């Protein structure tokens, strides 16, 4: 109960912080729209490649952009924690009765709220430009759920590394090193049967691809719920490990103070 309450306090703190930066909110909301329209236009004709079984590239791409947005957003979550650390805010919380898990979970829940809003914008926009999600509302909800799991995983990892590195430059480097390769080592932009074999093997163990595959089948005409469940299971397990890592990373920080 205490944990839930503390998490709520922290989530509200971060959402309020976000709300006070309207320009940042605007950019955050426009960003996924740009991904969708830009990549949608760039790769429009790839569906003409023999073997690419899709009627509309936007419809194929949209679940990938939802997942990508969830990851991109959450991967930067640790930046604000580094600012808290350098301003002494984290130290102040650590000498109070607040639960450490809440300090991580509050940030992740705030990212989740943002990601859900971004995802809604992407889905609505995709519908406007002519995509259809045959899986219906249930399918879209499943897509959001796997994105949220992936976002929470990356958010936790980002916060954990933030506590260990405590340097914005280092975290920026790490995020950039990881995020784009993981996106391209997945079926976000191209169907699995069209990407090189070695990439396909890598994508099988790529959490980003788990979310893309699960989200894409969930929103398709004939969802394979077995695939959705297994990938969601992997993601949930990874999220739990990441959260434990982030919570433990406070020890690393506390050894250094």
């Amino acid at each position: 109960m205490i944990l839930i309450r503390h998490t709520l306090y922290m989530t509200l703190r971060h959402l309020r912080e976000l709300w006070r930066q309207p320009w940042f909110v605007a950019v955050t909301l426009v960003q996924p729209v740009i991904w969708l329209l830009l990549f949608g236009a760039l790769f429009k004709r790839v569906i003409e490649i023999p073997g690419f079984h899709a009627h509309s590239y936007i419809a194929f791409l949209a679940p990938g952009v939802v997942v990508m947005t969830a990851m991109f957003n959450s991967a930067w979550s640790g930046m604000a924690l580094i600012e808290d650390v350098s301003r002494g805010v984290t130290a102040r919380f650590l000498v109070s009765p607040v639960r450490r898990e809440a300090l991580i979970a509050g940030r992740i829940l705030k990212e989740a709220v943002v990601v859900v809003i971004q995802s809604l914008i992407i889905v609505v926009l995709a519908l406007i430009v002519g995509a259809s999600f045959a899986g219906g509302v249930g399918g879209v909800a499943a897509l959001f759920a796997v994105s949220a799991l992936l976002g929470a995983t990356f958010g936790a990892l980002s916060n954990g590394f933030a506590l260990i590195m405590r340097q914005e430059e280092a975290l920026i480097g790490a995020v950039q090193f990881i995020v784009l390769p993981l996106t391209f080592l997945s079926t976000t932009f191209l169907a699995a049967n069209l990407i090189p074999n070695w990439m396909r093997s890598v994508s099988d163990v790529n959490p980003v691809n788990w979310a893309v595959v699960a989200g894409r089948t969930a929103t398709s005409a004939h969802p394979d719920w077995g695939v959705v469940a297994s990938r969601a299971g992997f993601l949930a397990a990874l999220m739990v490990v990441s959260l434990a890592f982030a919570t433990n990373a406070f020890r690393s920080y506390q050894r250094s103070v």
Partner: protein
Amino acid sequence: MEKAIEAESLAKTYPKGVKALAGLSFAVTPGTVFALVGPNGAGKSTAVKILTTLTTADAGRATVAGLDVLAEGDRVRRTIGVVAQGSGVDVQATGRENLRLQGQIHGIRGRSIEVRAQELLERFGLADAADRVARGYSGGMQRRLDIAMALVHDPAVLFLDEPTTGLDPEVRADMWSEIAELARERGKTVLLTTHYLEEADQLAERVAIVDRGTVVAEGTPEELKRELRGDAIHVDLETEYNGRVNRALSALEAVRDVTVDGKSLRARADDGGRAVPLVLQALEKQGVAVASVRVARPSLDDVYLKYAGRTFDAAEAEAEVTR
């Protein structure tokens, strides 16, 4: 009688090999203000971090309000209020929001937290700025908010780590009266760390002087100052003369506690004005050339010199190097 704070042989070396504490011990009687005085790098802040459970000691043990800081960290955190060096204010939130969140995590909810926040905002002169984002607060206002946040849950033991460092002299004076009031109020125990001997003198019932991670002297401000009666004489020499200076002054009854550090000579005298001509005469007789002479009331530097065997500046410079 049980102590409010007890530190026993605390030792800590940071991962990079910086030895912060080397067997620090002291005890604080409930309801009193206790000051740890020393230069940067003496280990004061590390001691506070261990006592407030932010970090752990490599050796030794400590209790706060009778609770072991290692074994009963959770209960310690519920009992204490902490104002850390620097600040812990969330500058993107308003003063009121900062207070509210701090109260909420201490389990104060609903109407009571609103009442408590308003009370503290008024008491610390922040009522007008209460709903402004703290980024726009002056240094003094942020510091007052810091202290208000530490008091939200009415803690039995309050830690103030260099609460007045970086503040203007007038703001510092205001802060002193606030802290003095805290100590009188409902028998709070206050542990204060400071650079300034006057601050400890003004506020603390007992003072411990910390150098290189240990307590080198402890007592009431009066006791410590009594040891330092008289004036400080500071002579700058033209060059280094080694033993000749000591030879010149050893026979002189007007001065005591003579120390020579390179071209710098320090001594104490009951009456500085009368002693200076005698000192100059004695030095001249030994052929020691003098560049300048100053006479001053005892300062923190002199306390340091006496108890730590080196000047405050030298201690700070050494702290910079090892950091």
